[in-house]
């Protein structure tokens, strides 16, 4: 019975998050909902990163870069591809039945010049007589995830031979190159100005007879929450299948795993592809929800947040990482205030991050499995049979000889 406690608690937590938007009705409703959506976003990143780093032992610092790949793919897709019932005669366009797929020419930021892209020119010429439509948002999100997977595959193949420090530096380098490229290619990505995305439900959405406008928080809340649950379900399925076992074998001893017949190449690349796809999907959804994506979203700070959340939650348990991410995001937002001690005004908007960093270091030093994962383990394993106990005992025995 005790072993069931985490599952019951997990179900309770899911129930709480499902019921929360309907029960809660204070004045700061939109703000709280926004915090929770962002928390779910970080939870997806932290959970997928913990699969990559904690289970497979691939300490990648490029996770936020893959998030950016997903978000930018969705953004560019919605920005440059349109559907029109009438050919524009100006753009590159392809006919599919009675609609034309219009590819807009890249012109970058147009504040200083008066040039318009070809679609705007055509729209001006039509003067409102023709309605063009965007590509569906869900298609952009799927494309974003696939693109994230493609990049994850490439990086996964490139880092096959690298371990530990080299892997961390290489993936960090990937994220930096990506950020620099996006900042530099202003014609296409609009550089530091950022690129705008349509809202998740640009024309509103009607669910069970209730119409939501595009600024309502409820639909994106459930989209993000659904994505989080989907990711967690996939991760749980993977972790409890042969895949999880092989991947953990990779982490503990790659050569031994290979000698025992594990196809290390395939599983290493596969774990990269799966986790980066999750990061990319989260990025695409978050981009559509926020409405804009800039290269600054790919800063190392964001990566440090993801890493810190996963570590504080428990890097070897993706559920703990996700819960840690949600809790930390909520706590960090709650701390956005200032108070006065002994005549000094302390501005918590910055100090909260200092404390966060200290907590991260202390967690790493004194509670290597994080703060939440041991609680879960406490119930599921009943104090004993920790996964790495055998290994630790072995090293201790070695040391005393």
């Amino acid at each position, binding site marked *: 019975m005790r072993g069931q406690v985490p599952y019951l608690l997990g179900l309770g937590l899911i129930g709480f998050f499902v019921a929360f938007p309907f029960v809660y009705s204070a004045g700061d409703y939109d703000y709280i909902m926004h915090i929770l959506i962002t928390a779910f976003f970080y939870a997806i990143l932290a959970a997928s990163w913990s699969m990559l780093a904690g289970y497979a032992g691939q300490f990648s610092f490029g996770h936020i870069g893959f998030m950016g790949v997903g978000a930018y793919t969705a953004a560019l897709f919605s920005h440059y591809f349109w559907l029109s019932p009438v050919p524009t005669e100006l753009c590159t366009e392809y006919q599919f039945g009675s609609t034309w797929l219009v590819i807009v020419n890249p012109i970058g930021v147009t504040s200083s010049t008066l040039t318009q892209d070809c679609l705007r020119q055509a729209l001006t010429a039509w003067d409102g007589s023709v309605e063009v439509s965007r590509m569906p948002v869900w298609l952009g999100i799927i494309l974003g995830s696939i693109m994230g997977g493609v990049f994850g595959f490439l990086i996964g193949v490139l880092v096959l031979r690298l371990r*530990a*420090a080299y892997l961390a530096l290489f993936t960090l380098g990937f994220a*930096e190159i990506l950020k620099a490229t996006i900042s530099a*290619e202003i014609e296409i990505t609009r550089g530091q100005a950022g690129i705008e995305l349509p809202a998740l439900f640009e024309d509103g959405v009607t669910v069970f007879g209730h119409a939501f406008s595009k600024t309502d928080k409820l639909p994106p809340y459930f989209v993000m929450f659904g994505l989080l649950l989907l990711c967690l379900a996939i991760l749980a399925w993977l972790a409890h299948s042969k895949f999880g076992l092989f991947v953990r074998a990779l982490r503990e001893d790659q050569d031994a795993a290979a000698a025992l017949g594990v196809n290390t190449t395939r599983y290493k690349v596969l774990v990269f592809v799966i986790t980066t796809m999750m990061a990319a999907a989260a990025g695409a959804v978050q981009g559509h929800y926020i409405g804009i994506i800039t290269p600054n979203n790919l800063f190392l700070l964001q990566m*440090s947040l993801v890493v810190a959340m996963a570590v504080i939650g428990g890097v070897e348990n993706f559920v703990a990482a996700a819960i840690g991410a949600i809790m930390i995001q909520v706590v960090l937002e709650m701390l956005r205030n200032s108070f006065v001690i002994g005549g000094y005004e302390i501005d918590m908007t910055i100090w909260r991050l200092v404390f966060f*960093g200290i907590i991260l270091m202390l967690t790493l030093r004194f509670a290597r499995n994080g703060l939440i994962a041991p609680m879960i383990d406490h119930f599921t394993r009943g104090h004993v049979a920790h996964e790495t106990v055998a290994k630790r005992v072995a090293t201790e025995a070695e040391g005393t000889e």
Partner: protein
Amino acid sequence: METPFIFWGAILWMILWGIIGSLVTRRRYLQHDLDTSNTVFVGAMLGAATGPVGLVPLWMKTPELTNRLIVIPAIGTVVLIAAAFAFADPQNNCVANGSFVASQITNGLIIGIIYGFMALGLTLIFSILGVVSFAHGEFYMIGGMLVYFITAVWFPGINPMIAILMACAVVFAMGAIFERMFLTPMYEGKIDRPVEYGILITFGLAFTLQYFVQATAGANPVKVRRYFDFPRIRLPSSDDPWLIKTSRGNMELFDTISISNPRFTAAITCVLVLGALLYFLHRTWTGKALRAVSQDRDAAAIAGINPDRMNMLAFALGGMIAALAGALLVQAFSWLPQVGAIPAMRSFVIVVLGGLGSLPGAFLGGILVGLVEAAGTGCIPDAQKAASYIPAYGMVVLTLTLLLRPTGLFGRRFASGTHGKF
């Protein structure tokens, strides 16, 4: 660029043959049961430089890969890329304008010396602790910040030399304390994966320090006035065709190369301190003990050296070197709490390029990266784009190094302790 297709065509051709060369050569050497440690690099470079002309003899004869065979194709590749660029864009500033090239190279060298010096600290830490310190950029930032606070806020009018020394002492102590508090469990085998632990814990330190400085010092850029003015001179004579002319903040050589005072003093100081550091490492007992620990931890312990104390010394010394680089450059750049990120990235690149744990490699790598950045910023036609790509140049070097020769220029294949595996 006038005819971009020449340049990009040449680049694509070289990449194609480089990939073919690296794959084929490695396979061939494996089949013949020969040493494959340099095959990827030589194959790629020879393929890129000569195409099939050089690869076929290599494939047929499979000679021993001597240093000459490693260096010449690499130089050839670089020359070929430069030639393709010159052909494609003859009007470019960095092809047509000789004095511009000279001044870019000089400035690249000077900034490269400073980069190399900073990377030296990182590689020192790595060679002894086996930890890639992600807090290196933050030590650099704190070095500069401390000099600003000492000279401008706490003790106005103090000699900048004393301020620099104080900053170094503070960071040295910080490094030592951090090492004692957080890195000691690594040595006792209590941690399953010490390398990752080292990365994460220094990452946490970087995060904490950056926001601590932002919370205490604010987010406004600060700047220190330059430490030292050049005397006003003209050499060889005060008449007009002069060779060297200095004003207080600048130095001009041959009427073409202009070097700003802060960078010049920083580079000279770096060279002097480097000399002192080499003396310390090679001539004093403690320095020899440090090197001994980096070569073989257990043997050093048997010889009566306390490796734990050397760990502390190495981490503190490495952090102090970064702080010194920051303290020297705070007079050249405006300083923010976030300023450490880019130099830290550069140090990672340099350290990997030079070979993790190799001191001369770090210095040479620094100069190379300085030159690459100077070439990148000088030669890309669109100035705005060139500036935006600055963080990427180093990362391209890093990526190429990791793919072609993960041991770097002078990397040791088998090092002691936790950092033997990569």
